């Protein structure tokens, strides 16, 4: 179905190839997962399948690509659009129309398809992606997951035999992401659609994948094979696979169900003292204290009566479903939204109603999309701008900007254009830009969205270093594994109220919804992370 033979590709004005001598082969009806660190050429590889590379991007390509019997390099993307449906990262950025049905019909209208045929096709894809109830909705009233499903439906309108998706869930919360991935699995198993998917969330798709294509950073060769063959060779794996590898489970479990079969046998006959997560209760005064905070947005109460304390040197994970009030609470703490009632005390000062710029010196806030922060020509300049905003001359900066950049692993990038960096690096530049005033607290909104395992690990290391240095850190996140590894305390919100507040083991370990993989594998042990397992057995 798809065959690459010794394909190399270099972007215009690039000094080294983005793809270097790549060969791979995909059969009809296979579900293949493309993994690899960011910058390894995943997007470029996917775009070769429908001819966007090199037709849209320009650049030099060599080698042979055959897709469904056609050569996408010779045929234009227009011809390939009948054979390959393509879905991109951000759903909003691929829509032309504003209504679900119109969007689905757009490509068909352009192809001058007779109206009767068009009606059938649109009905078909509406059903395939479960969109029939949403058919007349405006696209901007849909949730992220629904929008991405519309994008998939639109890509399937020509009845292509191949569907290619470039990190379709990286901008979605876990629930929406799961909806999208389940839809893909159904398309593959029921329709026999050939699917090529680049994805960070391995744990959700691993059970359904026929092949993994691993693109290492640079230098080493591409690895292609079944999950069991490829997983041991790559270092970016979900906790289940890591535990299985540590304990030498064979065959390698890909689902929790398979994993539990191993873990029950492994636990049998062993006595394990449940790990106690007794941490000394925080002493002293909290750095941030909210008292009875109530916030309304567009006439609706979004946060009601929240009392939250964050002490220096702790990481608090703020969790809850979409619309639970997590982001609103963070914005209120930093002064972007005004509480209707209650007060906020930072560093023993009542800051309720104070200017954001004032609070911003004491409390750093990293929004969901770090790109909104970045505008300067160089990374170094971004830090200088923040200092200038606060009226601090560079020689009186609370920390030396160069030291900070080195700490964030950006020393070599100080003169780069920030928006050209990878998602993880952009996030760290944004962090540097807010940390240069040495705020005593850091609030991060969905910091792991769009990060691969490696970038996530770098973020966790960084946060833990700041924590040891005495910073009070709050993470609003859907990412259970992040909360399990990094947080000292988990605060669960629902409908604007705090419904649980305690150690990760208490709040997450017992929850059927929020339990991390390790807790599900070893119930009753109090283990949450791979490190917990290692500590107990090594």
């Amino acid at each position: 179905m798809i065959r690459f033979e010794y394909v190399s590709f270099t972007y215009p004005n690039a000094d080294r190839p983005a793809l270097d001598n790549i060969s791979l082969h995909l059969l009809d009806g296979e579900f293949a997962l493309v993994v690899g660190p960011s910058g390894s050429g995943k997007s470029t590889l996917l775009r070769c399948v429908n001819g966007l590379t090199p037709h849209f991007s320009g650049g030099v390509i060599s080698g042979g690509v055959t897709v469904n019997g056609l050569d996408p390099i010779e045929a234009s993307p227009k011809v390939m659009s009948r054979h390959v449906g393509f879905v991109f990262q951000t759903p909003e950025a691929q829509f032309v129309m504003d209504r679900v049905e119109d969007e689905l019909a757009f490509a068909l209208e352009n192809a001058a398809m007779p109206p009767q045929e068009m009606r059938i096709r649109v009905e078909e894809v509406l059903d395939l992606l479960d969109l029939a109830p949403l058919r007349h909705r405006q696209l901007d009233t849909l949730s992220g997951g629904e929008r991405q499903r519309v994008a998939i439906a639109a890509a399937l309108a020509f009845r292509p035999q191949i569907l290619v998706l470039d990190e379709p869930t990286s901008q979605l919360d876990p629930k929406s992401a799961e909806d999208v991935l389940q839809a893909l699995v159904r398309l593959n198993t029921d329709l026999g659609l050939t699917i090529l998917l680049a994805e960070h969330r391995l744990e959700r798709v691993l059970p359904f994948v026929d092949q993994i294509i691993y693109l290492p950073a640079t230098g080493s060769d591409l690895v292609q094979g079944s999950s069991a063959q490829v997983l041991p060779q790559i270092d970016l794996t979900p906790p289940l696979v890591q535990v299985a590898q540590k304990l030498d489970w064979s065959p390698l479990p890909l689902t929790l169900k398979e994993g539990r079969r191993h873990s029950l046998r492994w636990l049998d006959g062993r006595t394990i003292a449940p790990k106690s997560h007794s941490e000394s209760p925080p002493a002293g005064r909290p750095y941030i204290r909210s008292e009875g905070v109530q916030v309304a947005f567009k006439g609706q109460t979004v946060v009601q009566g929240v009392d939250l304390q964050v002490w220096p040197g702790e990481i608090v994970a703020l969790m809850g479903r979409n619309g639970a009030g997590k982001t609103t609470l963070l914005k209120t703490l930093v002064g972007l939204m005004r509480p209707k009632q209650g007060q906020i005390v930072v560093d023993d000062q009542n800051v309720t109603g104070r200017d954001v710029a004032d609070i911003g010196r004491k409390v750093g806030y990293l929004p969901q999309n770090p790109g909104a922060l970045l505008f300067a020509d160089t990374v170094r300049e971004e830090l200088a701008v923040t200092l200038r905003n606060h009226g601090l001359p560079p020689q009186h900066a609370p920390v030396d900007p160069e030291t900070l950049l080195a700490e964030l692993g950006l020393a070599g990038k100080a003169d780069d254009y920030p928006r050209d960096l990878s998602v993880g690096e952009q996030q760290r530049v944004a962090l540097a830009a807010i940390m240069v005033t040495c705020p005593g607290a850091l609030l991060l909104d969905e910091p792991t969205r769009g990060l691969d395992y490696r970038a996530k690990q770098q973020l966790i290391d960084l946060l833990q270093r700041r924590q040891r240095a005495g910073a009070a850190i709050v993470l609003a996140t859907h990412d259970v594994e992040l909360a399990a590894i990094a947080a000292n305390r988990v605060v669960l919100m629902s409908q604007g109220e705090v419904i649980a507040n305690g150690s990760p083991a208490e709040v997450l370990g017992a929850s059927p919804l929020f339990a991390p993989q390790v807790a599900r594998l070893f119930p009753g042990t109090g283990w949450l992370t791979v490190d917990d397992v290692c500590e107990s057995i090594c």
Partner: protein
Amino acid sequence: MILSTTRNPWYVGLVLAAIAVVRAAIQRLDLSTSPLPFSILRFGLFVVTFSAIFNALSVHFGRTVLFVIPPAIPYLGGPVTLEALVYGTLNGLVLTGLFAAFTVFNQAVTIRQLIRLVPQAFFPVAIMVSIAITFVPVTLRHARDIREAQAVRGHRLRGLRDWLPLVMPLLVGGLERALQLAEAMTARGFASTDEAGHDALTRLTILLGLTLLIGGWLLRLVWGYAVGGLLLLLAGIGLIMGILWRVGRRVSRTNYRPQPWTGADWAIVAGAVGAAAGFVVPWPGLDRSSIFFYPYPQLSWPAFQPLLGLVIAGLLVPALLALRLPVKNKRGVKRPSPTAQRGEPQIPPAGGLGGP
């Protein structure tokens, strides 16, 4: 069009009443997609009051003096007359009518439906407009995110150069999205370059048509050759229509759920054109003097020509048609274009526009 030709309170009142009836009829069908930020009534009240007071205070002309502001006060000093008050009120009513007509039109026809009415030859332009409309809410959201993100970094708006941190990410972000969209459209087989061309012949013909149009108009208005000018005008219009039709046929494109142009649509157009024609075209035998009502210098009772009053009734066609349609559930699911969905006559595309 009627509203802009007359200040006769009878006719203005009748048109306003017609608009109100059409609006009520449409709302009964629950066609409204976007609730108005403020009501037409409140807008009208404000405009009428403001216009009346402003005119009365600034125009000291007319014979019926109500009271006199001491001339020592600059600008406002002088007699305040009933005539000025009445004329200001009428102007306010006309403005309200124009606003109301556009609102009603907007409620009945979505922008997408308008785009579908655009000739096929201009399809790429229509797509561009459509994308622009879709871009607006995304860009607004993006702008809010950026403002918040910069505020947290201690950004304050003090001078011109402080706009840079807000504008730069917005521009770059917009460009990035535009590129992504271009890529997505390419992946879905949209290629604007191979459209059946706007070749040299097409361009020349359109240019020629426009020249004829302008020439004819100048002839009629400036040099006073009525017949010759009219002929040139018609020739120009004919040429442009012809070339649009030719190019349109070459563009291969179909419409999802095409909306047939039905008898009802013709009736609406006829009603609106009839009403407009009654007021604009100098029909022989029709006494048109009542149209030009002017309160200065002495307020008089406006004349009323029953035939012209009857002509305005043509604007009610969409309301009559709407009354024939079944009433939809008021709290039903939001449907931006119910007409398209039911394949029934498009409600009043012409009624709303023809009115003003």
